[in-house]
């Protein structure tokens, strides 16, 4: 350190004295102020007129956002500047990442108590973890019944827990059955028909597989969940004991295993995730399968897809339970419990999930959350050149209204899935018998739920 930067003892004493003096003066001042405002009699209350609002409602405030990003997600954020202009607030993104990265960061922040943002991205499959971690603010105080009236009720129900609404839905996705019109003349009504049809249209010589499913992680657990539900099963009973090893579960798992062993699904199926199954479909090697509506634009792109214009869509089959499959999820926004600007955060969420926001996302082909926007886009689809345009929208809306089912609204869904999917893979590959495998999985899930304090 050079000499001119050295602080002498005298300088230090001076500085300490100055700071001490300032603190003392401040303390005395505040004491005298307290004395002033501690009257012996009640002060005279002057009623003055409320000053006219000259500024904007959130002038000078900053709303910090932890958001999902990528592909279509960012389009919606183009609405933010006009909200900033209207309200006087500023939006600052503290994090942007894909869904899984965002989820991981949120979980860690809630656990570590390092949440320094007001709005966070949320998902119907994940929000229960954040609620359990005490990281979210219920939205009921910020949104009236009138505000919520236009949202599809099933979407709101999907993120209502303990009687409170935690996520305001932005858009959703659900799967429908996609089938090649050159191979399938009538879509299967039941999973039994689906299985038989998949076996019938498989043509090993031509490299054509009857069907496929994404075969790992939550993608596989979710598909099992929806077939199992259709067959009349529940993953858990009302005491949160696993029940997926019952007859419905065994039937669902057996269908996967039978289709695989018969060669009606690609041999690498247990390594597939969403992009892999979509790729197989556009390569024309799959006859029929259930897929999210979100891929539709890609499938109808003749540049990328060999099946463009050669397929149709239908509601997912039902099972012995008389229920149509409908594993679904929605993206949305939540307010964090640690938010400093809760009112402004609610206003921003309201803006992003407004009719305007929904219209913007609907233009991108995304399935949006407001009924009024659905009515509008279905009416507009009448004149579309795409023969499936209107049917697709009507089908998606009907499924959202009638078939939309989320996995159990508990924080332990992903841990349950992590236990379940490797065993489902073993069943599919024939390493273990369906009943024995599901019994094993149920026992492990029971232990995990017990540790989590459910019983």
């Amino acid at each position, binding site marked *: 350190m050079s000499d001119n930067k050295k602080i002498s003892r005298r300088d230090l004493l001076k500085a300490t004295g100055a700071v001490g003096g300032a603190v003392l003066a401040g303390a005395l001042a505040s004491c005298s102020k307290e004395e002033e405002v501690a009257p012996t009699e009640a002060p005279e209350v002057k009623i003055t007129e409320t000053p006219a609002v000259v500024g904007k409602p959130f002038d000078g405030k900053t709303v910090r956002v932890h958001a999902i990003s990528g592909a279509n997600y960012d389009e919606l954020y183009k609405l933010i500047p006009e909200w900033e202009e209207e309200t006087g607030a500023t939006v600052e993104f503290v994090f942007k990442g894909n869904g899984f990265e965002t989820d991981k960061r949120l979980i860690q922040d809630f656990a570590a108590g390092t949440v320094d943002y007001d709005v966070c991205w949320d998902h119907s499959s994940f929000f229960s973890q954040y609620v359990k971690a005490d990281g979210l603010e219920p939205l009921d105080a910020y949104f009236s019944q009138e505000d919520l009236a236009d949202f599809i009720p099933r979407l709101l129900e999907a993120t209502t827990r303990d009687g409170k609404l935690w996520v305001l839905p932005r858009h959703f996705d659900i799967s429908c059955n996609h089938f090649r019109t050159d191979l399938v003349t009538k879509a299967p009504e039941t999973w039994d028909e689906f299985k038989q049809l998949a076996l019938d249209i498989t043509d090993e010589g031509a490299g054509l597989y009857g069907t496929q499913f994404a075969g790992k992680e939550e993608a596989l657990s979710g598909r099992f969940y929806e077939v199992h539900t259709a067959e009349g099963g529940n993953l858990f009973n009302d005491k949160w004991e696993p029940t997926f090893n019952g007859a419905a579960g065994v039937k669902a798992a057996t269908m996967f295993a039978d289709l695989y062993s018969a060669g009606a699904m690609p041999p*690498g199926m247990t390594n597939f995730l969403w992009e892999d199954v979509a790729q197989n479909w556009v390569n024309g090697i799959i006859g029929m399968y259930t897929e999210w509506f979100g891929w539709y634009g890609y499938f109808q792109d003749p540049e990328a897809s060999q099946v463009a214009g050669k397929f149709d869509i239908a509601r997912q089959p039902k099972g012995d339970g008389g229920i149509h499959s409908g594993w679904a999820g929605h993206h949305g926004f939540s307010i964090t419990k640690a938010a400093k600007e809760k009112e402004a955060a609610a206003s921003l969420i309201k803006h992003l999930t407004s009719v305007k926001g929904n219209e913007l996302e609907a233009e991108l082909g995304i399935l949006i959350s407001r009924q009024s926007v659905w009515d509008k886009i279905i009416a507009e689809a009448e004149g579309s050149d795409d023969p499936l345009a209107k049917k697709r929208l009507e089908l998606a809306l009907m499924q959202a209204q009638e078939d939309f089912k989320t996995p159990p609204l508990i924080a332990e869904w992903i841990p349950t899935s992590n236990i379940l999917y490797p065993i489902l893979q073993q069943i599919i590959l024939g390493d*273990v018998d369906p009943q024995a495998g599901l019994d094993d999985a149920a026992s492990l899930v029971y232990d995990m739920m017990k540790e989590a304090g459910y019983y």
Partner: protein
Amino acid sequence: MTARSSPLKRIKEKRLIGSLGRQERMLAIALLLPSILIILLVVGFPMLYSLYLSFTNYTLVNTKDVDIVGLANYIELFNKPAFWQAFGRTVLFISLAVNLEFLIGLGIAQLMARAVKGQGLLRTIMMMPMMFAPILVGFQFKWFFNDQVGLMNNLLYSISGARQIIPWLVDKPLGFISILVAEIWMSTPFMVVILEAGILSLPIEPFEAAEVDGATSWQKFRYLTMPMLMPFVYTAMAIRSLDIGRAYDLVSIMTAGGPGNRTELIWTYVNRLAFSGHDYSLGSSMSYVTVIFSGLFTFYFFRNVIKSRWEGRE
């Protein structure tokens, strides 16, 4: 150890320690203190905290009602067949990968040490697989072994003319072998570099003497090269074993430990349980068990390194 130290070395050691005055000793400690503090902060504290977590029921979604559960996580772990399967598979993977890398690496190193021209170029080409991030190698080999559009099946189709749909990453034991191939491709160059350096550093006199005595090439390799090369072999094997012992990225990309746990190694299992499943307490106990085993393994290897070093000198 002391008995084997030379008198000169003993004098130097004594002088170094004994001659330090109190002030110098304090200075030495003060100079070391920042490093010690940093190590304690970035290594010691996380390890102790992780050890503490392993005795609790901490999960990321349950950070408030955390209780000490004693050895419950360890007991649960030892009762999990999936853990032992992953553990056994990891040991098998390490054993096969390290030994195959050693054999291939030794062969290549011998050839390269004899190359008269272009050694530098050969070494650069040889090092290339090491320059790729494991995650990229994983993606590359995942594509090679893809059953629909992969290189292997297309190659087989070109050769045989028959459509081959071999699910390389699914079938037993092909999935395991596929990952092993990727690992060996990526890491053998490391063995080559270390072993070639060892071969080039060997003294020439014993080989000349053996030549005079009429020893065959095999005898020279068996009785001269290998014993003198052993410190290098053990060092390379110890480093590679530890490296492979923490294999995660390659496996995660190629198979994620699946399907149906068929390629599950210890760290993909830890990741699924601890990070994806948010169960940090059980994950910590599993990590500790693994680290202790790795420590014993390292101790065994380094003991052999030291032993072979002295044997080489004698």
